[in-house]
């Protein structure tokens, strides 16, 4: 497939993920909308092109792994997994209901295709490192991906992992930071300024890139560059907007966990459907 076609296909997939994620929240009336919207393009590139996996055998040992360390973005991952056939669309509408297999934060024991349990921030970088080490010990050449939030980078454990991974030359470990500039209580600049995250990881010994996190083409290029890099882990800092593509969430300060009115969600769904239709026409 030519790159232009691939980019168009992944743009469609991204809007499909966004639409299904919003549908999950719509059924509930609230949720971690902001941080789910900002990782949609990354999930589209990973599950739409870069990762190898088998929906019929989610624990296939040779699969690529994703540790969604910012576990509150689980609903976006659930939409992605459902679209890729790990489980039915109907299951999406059980989000957060009693007895569901789709809890607000990711759980490896409940959801087919979820590789690691996350939710308490800062821990996913370490479990991803462990998975990458274990796979390398067994001589596998699969990749382990992980996604951190920017607020999550306040946690000391993130920087423990940042020191550790280059020491062990984990070049099949590819991380992302969703740098949308907002954390639960407000803007990262005002609460605990993270500054130049890519420079920090570079200084720690990572192959670090900083890109537009809503451009599937930029994400594709960055992951391909990361895969070519040898001898060090990779970090891709995604410049994103929290709530991206969701009309009632994007551009407002308090968009981490939102309760919304049905008419607000109707509008957001309509806008997303319009973008999806336009992406499909381009494809």
């Amino acid at each position: 497939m030519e790159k232009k076609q691939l980019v168009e296909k992944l743009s469609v997939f991204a809007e499909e993920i966004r639409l299904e994620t919003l549908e999950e929240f719509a059924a509930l009336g609230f949720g971690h909308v902001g941080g789910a919207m900002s990782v949609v393009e990354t999930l589209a590139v990973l599950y739409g092109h870069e990762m190898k996996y088998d929906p019929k055998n989610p624990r296939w040992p040779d699969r690529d792994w994703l540790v969604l360390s910012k576990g509150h973005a689980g609903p976006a991952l659930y939409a992605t997994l459902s679209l890729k056939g790990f489980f039915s669309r109907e299951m999406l509408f059980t989000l957060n209901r009693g007895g569901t297999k789709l809890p607000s934060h990711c759980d490896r024991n409940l959801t087919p295709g979820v590789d690691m349990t996350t939710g308490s921030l800062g821990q996913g970088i370490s479990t991803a490192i462990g998975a990458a080490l274990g796979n390398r010990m067994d001589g596998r050449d699969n990749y382990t991906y992980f996604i951190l939030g920017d607020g999550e980078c306040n946690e000391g454990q993130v920087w423990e992992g940042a020191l550790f991974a280059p020491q062990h030359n984990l070049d099949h470990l590819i991380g992302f930071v969703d740098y949308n500039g907002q954390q639960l209580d407000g803007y990262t600049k005002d609460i605990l300024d993270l500054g130049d995250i890519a420079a920090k990881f570079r200084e720690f010994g990572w192959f670090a890139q900083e890109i537009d996190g809503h451009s599937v083409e930029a994400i594709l290029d960055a992951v391909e560059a990361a895969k070519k890099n040898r001898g060090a882990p990779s970090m891709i800092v995604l410049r994103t907007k929290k709530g991206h593509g969701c009309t009632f969430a994007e551009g407002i300060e308090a968009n981490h966990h939102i309760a919304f009115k049905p008419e607000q969600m109707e509008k957001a769904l309509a806008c997303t459907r319009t973008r999806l239709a336009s992406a499909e026409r381009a494809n």
Partner: protein
Amino acid sequence: MFKLRETLEKSPDMMRDVYCNTLMELAETDPRICALDADLVSSSGMKPFFRAYPDRAINCGVQEANMIGVAAGLSATGKIPFAHSFGIFATRRACDQIFMSAAYAKLNVRIVGSDPGVTAAYNGGTHMPFEDMGVLRSIPQITLLEPTDPVMLEELVRKLTEVYGVYYIRMARKNVAGIYEKGSSFTIGRGNLLKDGSDVTLIASGIMVAEALKAREVLASEGISAKVVDMFTWKPVDSELIARCAAETGAFVTAENHNTVGGLGSAVTEAVCATCPVPVEMVGTHDRFGQVGTEDFLREEYKLTAGEIAAAARRVLARKAK
């Protein structure tokens, strides 16, 4: 089945050497076994393992939180990680990682916390875990073990490669009293009834097992007949054995090198109250912090002695009589 040694003497083998040698032997045929440490390889006695298996041994540096997370991730790929630090760091410092990355995620991790209680001696109060078991005891489905001597440690390390889940091993590093003959076997979750008796049950763990055996002799000279139980599994505690001892003796003394709040005394008392309520006296550190000193000084300071166990037995018998 276990067999007691005839005399109470310090075991010639250091606990840490037995730990390392057993893991080395197991690792030879089991590629799943790997070892992690947080800059305490020299203390844990694991240098030979790190030399023999460099691809499966990871010195994480001074990073307990990351170490537990890495161990959890390794186990998700099928490895059996044994992660060591001093008990204080292995538990207090990494509690949330043990909770979420390992236990809640239902992964397969062994955590070894060394220098229990007063055995931390010269490292002092900052390094003296009187709370490590208590910190972890409220995490669901975790198993808490305190191997009593090198014979038990070796057997438990072997067993820990055949089970699944999160296991914490509270391990003295150096020489401790040898209680068991070589070739003894043990069952995780089952206490060992070391000596039978009819008036009171002394339930002990770790370095307090030898003290309980000595206390039994003191009590015998006074005409008091005591059972002695080695309760090396603190969680799940052996409620069945506790209920039987309660029915047969009607009184307990617990003895631990740990805070009585949240520790063995708490675990035993919960089981006693739920099965066959009888009076319980506790020997332990009673909500105090640790401090620096020799192990002998600290045993006296915190009353972790045979004399205190015997005194507690007399108190509990007085309560039982009422």
